[in-house]
């Protein structure tokens, strides 16, 4: 065990960093906010932590915290700027935001080390501490998936108009999503920079956007568990695929494409469906459909004045 742990330390560390990164995209996505600003925040966090460590010898957590604060402020300002955008347009704008940051890093002179980046960010950050941070984050996010907060996040994603009609301040929630995303992304970036003792503009490019998105979609976008599955798979897959040698990148692409097409709810969704089906087989839900009284057809005996053209009864939503 301990031998295995030592041999795979870098992968283990990457798994947790990737988890935080994936969560930084997933959390806004749970509110229907398609933002990649978390990747930009990763860059902010990485550079801030490296700069604080190298120049001012700040302790690890202070350096990471500084990056988080900067990224949260940036996230909030970005949220104000892009408040009119939605869907793919929002995705584009936030990708642009992220890539602008990369160009700024390349042109940042001695502060960011230009195209080479920064080296020698040596700190006392331990793998155990990284895991602890991840655990705390996961617990908080898991709580946000339940109860009142869980319902409200669902409502903001599924039907913002309905959400405001039950008093949910959707705009505020969405801004919060940007801030949380900034904190998570910066935390991931800061930890990665300190674990690797280095950061360069190449670390924060379009490929990282692609990786984070892939992790969430393949793992499952609705829950932290999906992000965990995704980050484990995509951190370890290259290792596993060494067996197929040269073709590993091809296989990798095929796996991503296949999951996107045929497993839309992600691996987590598959697991949940299987679990639900098992439970249903063991004991059916008490009289849900049977209890529904009367006819489902509109206008039968009640003779409304017009055919109810717009709302054809479908039994579900929309």
């Amino acid at each position: 065990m301990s031998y295995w742990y030592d041999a795979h330390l870098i992968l283990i560390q990457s798994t947790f960093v990737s988890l935080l990164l994936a969560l930084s995209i997933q959390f806004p996505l749970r509110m229907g906010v398609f933002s990649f600003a978390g990747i930009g925040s990763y860059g902010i966090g990485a550079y801030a932590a490296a700069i604080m460590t190298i120049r001012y010898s700040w302790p690890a957590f202070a350096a990471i915290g500084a990056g988080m604060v900067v990224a949260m402020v940036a996230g909030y300002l970005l949220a104000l700027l892009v408040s009119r955008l939605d869907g793919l347009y929002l995705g584009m704008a936030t990708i642009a935001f992220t890539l602008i940051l990369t160009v700024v890093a390349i042109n940042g002179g001695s502060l960011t080390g230009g195209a080479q980046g920064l080296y020698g960010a040596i700190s006392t950050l331990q793998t155990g501490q990284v895991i602890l941070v991840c655990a705390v984050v996961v617990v908080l996010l898991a709580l946000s998936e339940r109860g009142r907060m869980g319902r409200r996040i669902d409502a903001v994603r599924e039907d913002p108009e309905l959400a405001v009609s039950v008093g949910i301040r959707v705009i505020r929630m969405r801004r919060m999503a940007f801030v949380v995303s900034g904190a998570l992304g910066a935390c991931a970036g800061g930890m990665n920079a300190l674990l690797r003792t280095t950061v360069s503009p190449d670390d924060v490019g379009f490929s990282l956007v692609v990786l984070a998105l892939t992790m969430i979609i393949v793992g499952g976008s609705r829950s932290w568990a999906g992000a965990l599955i995704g980050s484990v798979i995509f951190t370890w897959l290259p290792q596993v695929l060494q067996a197929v040698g040269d073709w590993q990148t091809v296989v990798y692409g095929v796996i991503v494409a296949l999951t996107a097409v045929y497993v839309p709810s992600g691996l987590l969704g598959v697991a949940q469906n299987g679990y639900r089906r098992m439970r249903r087989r063991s004991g059916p839900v008490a009289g849900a459909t049977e209890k529904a009284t009367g006819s489902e057809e509109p206008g039968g005996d009640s003779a409304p004045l017009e055919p109810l053209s717009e709302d054809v009864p479908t039994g579900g939503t929309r």
Partner: protein
Amino acid sequence: MAQDVINAATLGSLYLLFALGMSLAWGTIGILNFAHGSIFMFSAFVCHLIVREAALPMPVAVLIGLVVGAVISVLVQVLAFEPIQRRAADHRRAELQILVGGIGMAGVLLAIAQRVTKSVPFGFSESTFRVHVYDLGFVRLSNVQIVIVVAACLLAGLAGWWLRSSRSGLALRAIGVDPEVATMMGVDRRKLAVAIMAASGGLAGVAGVLLTYYLGSIAAESGDAFLLKAFAAIVLGGVGSVGGAAVGAAILAVVETIVLVQTSGTWVDAVSFGLIFLMLLVRPRGIFGRKEVRRT
């Protein structure tokens, strides 16, 4: 100065060829194809393999690029996007899945090209086509540049005419406005989607081959950079309109050329991203974008 104009025109034409198909697919059938960059690269790559075996003239190479691009694009549509659209629970999920499906397909294409070329840039050195540079005194102009600009104008004009006047073009625009009405009009969405993806891929293929002729060689990784440029052009001009794509590509090329001339060149990439960002903030629908009529 005149030289800069020529260079900007060439760059803009390449952007237009590349972005046009992507913009049309997005604006009409709602597919934002992340594999577009890889299709572009892969067409040039296949062309490179063929030209290596047989010394072909340029028009044939361009034709090969067109066919390969169209075929791959249709394959991506049939294998990935079609099943996704058929099975997706709702619009937003489908958008996301199409994004990731495209990324996966792009990954496959990129990996194959990387494996075969060992990530060494490839070109058409065996082609019978020779680059001539005409020195007009105040400006130097190559025959490749002329071909690129002419091809872009011709193909964009053709696409615009097709959308405006043909029956299937009208049907496509109907889909873009309201899929349900289009279906009621008796439009076969599936066939049209395949057609538009073929056209879109064909344009990308042509762009890929011409870019390779222009630069001498391209690397397997060139696709992603172009993808981002195309976003910028599309967002600038407005999704789904030929004129929009043309104006977007032109603005992007001009601004990039200016920045390249005025600065050290490391800021060039910031231009496209900055333009995307600014445009989305100021006028999210683009210069020529129509108001989105999305019914809830």
